[in-house]
């Protein structure tokens, strides 16, 4: 593990940003050129959304991986978080601009369709976290920054529920995402760390 951690330390963070952001234009290009199949709008929307969920899971895995396996990915956690927000935003943009298209219907959908309400709530929960992901905010907010960023837990939960709610019939994949996110949140419960425990008691 020591060796892995040492290798990881040599990877610059910008490489993670670059690697993480590349699928966005690539998928868009595929959508334009028929690579996403016959119906590229829904495909692009779903691919961005799935990537956002996968990154969310990656971000939530950082702490347990360090604690349980001794694997240190702390250095990349901010990049993972920012990339999560990038894909959530792209997912939302595809929905707004390419999918629904009609402004009056967008608002009606947010209010009337529970899975969209839940998805929107997840986005709004992540928004302040993305805005305060810079060093200046970390310094400025001090201990409040840590508290604020625990909102990633409800956001992850809402994101997974959003996916489960839109599935037709009984489908395995969305439930697998939900179970993974539940497991990662549950791992945070019994940790003998007072601040963590009190927070989780509040949000549970």
């Amino acid at each position: 593990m020591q060796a892995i951690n040492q290798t990881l330390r040599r990877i610059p963070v910008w490489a993670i940003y670059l690697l993480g952001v590349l699928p966005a234009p690539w998928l868009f290009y595929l959508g334009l050129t028929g690579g996403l199949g016959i119906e590229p709008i829904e495909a692009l929307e779903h691919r961005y959304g799935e990537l956002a969920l996968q990154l969310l899971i990656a971000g939530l895995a950082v702490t347990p991986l360090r604690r349980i396996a001794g694997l240190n990915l702390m250095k990349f956690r901010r990049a993972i978080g920012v990339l999560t927000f990038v894909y959530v935003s792209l997912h939302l943009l595809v929905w707004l601009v390419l999918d629904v298209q009609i402004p009056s219907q967008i608002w009606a959908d947010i209010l009337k369709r529970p899975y969209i309400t839940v998805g929107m709530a997840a986005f709004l929960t992540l928004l302040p976290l993305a805005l305060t992901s810079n060093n200046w905010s970390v310094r400025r907010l001090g201990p409040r920054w840590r508290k604020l960023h625990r909102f990633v837990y409800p956001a992850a939960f809402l994101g997974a529920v959003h996916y489960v709610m839109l599935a037709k019939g009984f489908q395995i994949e969305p439930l697998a995402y939900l179970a993974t996110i539940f497991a990662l949140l549950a791992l945070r419960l019994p940790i003998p760390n007072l601040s963590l425990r009190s927070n989780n008691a509040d949000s549970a």
Partner: protein
Amino acid sequence: MAHRWTNTLTHADVTPRAAFLNRRQVMVGLAGVGLTAMSKPAAAQDALEPNTWEEVTTYNNYYEFGTGKDDPAKYAHTLVTEPWSVKIDGLVDRPGDYDFQSILSEMTIEERIYRFRCVEAWSMVIPWNGFELADLLNMAGMQEGAKYVAFETAYRPEEMPGTRFPILEWPYREGLRLDEAMHPLTIMATGIYDRPIPNQNGAPLRLVVPWKYGFKSIKSIVRITLTEEEPPTSWNMSSPREYGFYSNVNPNVDHPRWSQASEREIGGGLFASRKPTLMFNGYEEEVAGLYEGMDLAKNY
């Protein structure tokens, strides 16, 4: 008794075979320079243009082969469709197992270019070949008390990888009221673009009810039963709040999770615009009479 209904869409609206096979490549080429919209003539807005063979046969919902839209095209080749027989039973004079080929020999195959509207708010135009369900029901002889027709899709786990998962309660079931089943618009499709219907589209024979959401048009039928009571139907069993027995296309009655007021025509690429959904999917003149006096918001 064939030819009771004629297309308002004519052969002039059908993409010639050479063109429909090539259009996809043309569109892909044009899409790269942002000219996708130009591949459809402006005048074609109302005169419907059927989707290409590729669109019709690679973008499908057939959960017995997986829930992805491309799963049926990838996996449905395992379905054995020869020989095929359809059990016709219930309130009929001549119940029994009817061989598909002998059914065909009794029927008149004609072309029907229909709009196809999925409950998921996308749509296509499909040039079906088939015969009227009424002819098949007359062949079996309907008995006095028959009020409904129940249909069943083949359920063969070893040929249908998607049935390993309890997405729905298999086999897939659908049903129509007898007057809906006897309506001249209701057909049993056996072909698309004058070719035998591919497995992913419901080979060797499937129902097509163009004024209802696509899931009513049950695929790969192995059993037809005439009943007195309204038969159970798969999506209604799975979520009665979302999918009613009638499931007529209706822009004024939303699915609880999404609006049915508009739809996306498949084939428009990444920048396809939505168009308004038509009452009874544009077949209001032909079928509205079937539902006279019914509250369509209640009987969704």
